């Protein structure tokens, strides 16, 4: 464990100092904090003496999912002009990446306080929902329509991560499209990226992550039954493109399915 942490620290330290991101952006690594409310909990993080609101508790189908206590979180967000929620400045849009190593110091749970009740009704209560899922089905089959001969898909990733629960939907869409379009080939490009933190430090992903992402997606499509396709698998390093704005969008795999 210690070795891994040391490695991560060295990796950060070795990274080049770059220009700071725009003042409206907050990119930082911190312990997440969960605050209870009379409905769903809200998730916060502190950076340079200020508290930021990340998200409320959601479900599997939400575009932004809460972080985890027991782990630090990489926050990449834009300061919005919305009123504070749960006492925190609202970051919107925001991308959250759970750091993989365990961190026992990230354990802050705050009780509900009247002044921090949510100023809106959350999409789903803490218990059963009013319908199926609050934000949409986790995986949906594409509607039958004219199937394009070639179509591009994009999978986005948390920092240093491979496929996880939220990729089931785009993978299913790729799978369905390949079947419906009678595709013969698929081109998969995995990207390694970096994020420019608000303190000016460049935080780079694992050197092999672009290759691993691309190869994993190919393996998964084959594993799901797309064994007849011709696979063109490659990877690319985009760490130099980090500028503190939309860096999260560069952690991706692009998949082009064609006949």
């Amino acid at each position, binding site marked *: 464990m210690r070795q891994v942490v040391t490695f991560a620290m060295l990796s950060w330290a070795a990274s080049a100092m770059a220009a700071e991101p725009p003042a409206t952006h907050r990119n930082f690594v911190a312990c997440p904090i969960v605050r209870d409310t009379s409905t769903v*909990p809200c998730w916060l993080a502190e950076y340079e003496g200020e508290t930021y609101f990340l998200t409320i508790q959601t479900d*599997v189908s939400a575009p932004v*999912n809460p972080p985890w206590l027991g782990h630090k979180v990489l926050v990449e967000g834009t300061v919005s002009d919305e009123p504070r929620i749960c006492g925190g400045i609202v970051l919107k849009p925001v991308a959250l990446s759970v750091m993989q190593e365990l961190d026992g110091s990230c354990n802050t749970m705050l009780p509900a306080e009247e002044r921090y009740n949510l100023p809106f009704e959350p999409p789903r209560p803490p218990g*059963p929902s009013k319908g199926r899922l609050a934000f949409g089905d986790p995986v949906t089959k594409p509607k039958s329509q004219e199937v394009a001969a070639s179509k591009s898909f994009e999978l986005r990733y948390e920092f240093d991560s491979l*496929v996880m629960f939220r990729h089931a939907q785009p993978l299913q869409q790729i799978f369905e499209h390949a079947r419906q379009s009678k595709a013969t080939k698929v081109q998969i490009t995995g990207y390694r990226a970096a994020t420019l933190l608000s303190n000016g430090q460049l935080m780079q992903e694992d050197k092999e992550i672009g290759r691993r992402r691309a190869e994993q997606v190919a393996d998964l499509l084959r594993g*799901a039954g797309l064994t007849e396709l011709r696979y063109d698998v490659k990877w690319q390093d985009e760490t130099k493109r980090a500028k503190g704005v939309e860096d999260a969008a560069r952690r991706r795999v692009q998949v082009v399915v064609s006949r």
Partner: protein
Amino acid sequence: MLKNIVKFMVGCGAGFLASAALADQPAPGHVPRQKQQAQQAPVIDARSPPANRWWTPGEGTPLPPVIAYPNSFGQVGVLNDAGVIDTQDHPFFEPIGENGRACVSCHQPANAMSLSVEMIRQRWHETQGKDPIFAPIDGMNCPDLPPGDPKSHSLLLERGLFRIFLPWPPKAADGSSIDPEFTIEVVRDPTGCNLHPQYGLKSANPMVSVYRRPRVAANTKYFTHQGFGVFSFIGKNGLPATRDPETGLPSGMNILSDARQPTLKTQAVEAAVTHLQFNGKLDEERLTKIVSFESQVYTAQVSHTGAGSLMESDTPPGFGVLNLAKGREGLLGNNVTNFVFPMSEAWRNPAPSPDPEITRRNEMRASIARGHDVFMFRTFWIKDAMHLNTVGLGNPTKRTCSTCHGMHMMGMDIVNGWMDLGTTNLPWAREEPLNPWNERKPQMPLFKITCKANVPPHPFLGRVFYTQDPGRGLISGKCNDVGAIVMQQFRGLAARAPYFSNGSAGSLRELVDFYDRRFNIGYTDREREDLINFLSAL
């Protein structure tokens, strides 16, 4: 005309060749390594005399459309949607392997098509340990222990556990080896099987032995559904779902506690080899009969000691075997439109009655209704549960029992249902307290798991941790699957204690208490009692 005949003959020839080639291929679900061990294990002289509530393999008694058996909370019922089942020569009821067992041996109607530890003990006394359920292959702690000695069968007699032996490293469906993300070391081997030179991890046919409860072989339409959340990729981790080898359709992966078999049919193929020591290839006719039987049989509590009959027209829609048989599968119930187990207002707020007996009955019904509400609406913090907190809900998440147990009418997970609640992973798994005043020794094996350096550590347990049963991890080889177990259905609970895959909860009270401790819920006495009453009526 002649051309057509030639074409037909060529076609037939090709068919015969194809058939011959297929005959050499292992049947889907077949497990050659386990078969090797099953055929090595001794078979002892077994006998299974008829007894009250016990279905003896091959007894040939017709199974009626509805049959009820008593238990401490009332009666459990078994409903055959196809009408009377002729069990004579029926492969579910006939001994088809070497050891005298049939499927029914461990899926007894009186135990909600599972097997209670109380029934196992009764059977031990009735047969002096000669019933085929005590067969050395898996009814013993390890196959070469002395037969007839209760100590050789302690896990079965004390916790209702059968030995499940799985190859290490794991094998994919095509028989190839999976490179696991973790190493496994045996640090405690009370049964002697994991370090055994013939049956263990270091044997010529490396095998891990874990010990699990038989699951309910009924209500199968619900947990083999093709509805909500069943897709080609698993909604919890994005990896490919297992597929039905015949149709190619993804499976819900909810049949076995580690999701290792995709269909009822492949499960039957494996069970015949491993549990029945069948040395051959089950023919299509027998497999079809087994699957047909399992697809039409339903079980649930049909009467409750306090609440009365659960077979009446005014029984809440979520209760009783009749309602269960006509329910809709593939529905998410963790909402206020479907509900997991729909309740009725008549039970929640019964009309006052001058009859004290009806008043007592109504009080129990109201308690069951409150227990339902505890299950559906009582929030608590769910923390560090792999495949729950990691699937977009955050860690911790303030939710309810029905968050995980969301399958309409079943209480299983509606999607691919493995999760780590801590029933087998330390620090939460039940362990024997070690101290100078306790003479009991730990019963369960203990494995040290080390996640390899090239994969992330387990999100909540780190890189090195300990488990009594690696669960799904023994199949997928994934570090974060270690200790993740496919949750079981809630039906007929009153008839089939103990609970959890490793039988670590001896009663419904112990089951509820496990969750109370694990998630620091803080149930009040009334909440606990209501919840137990609710569970006992399912």
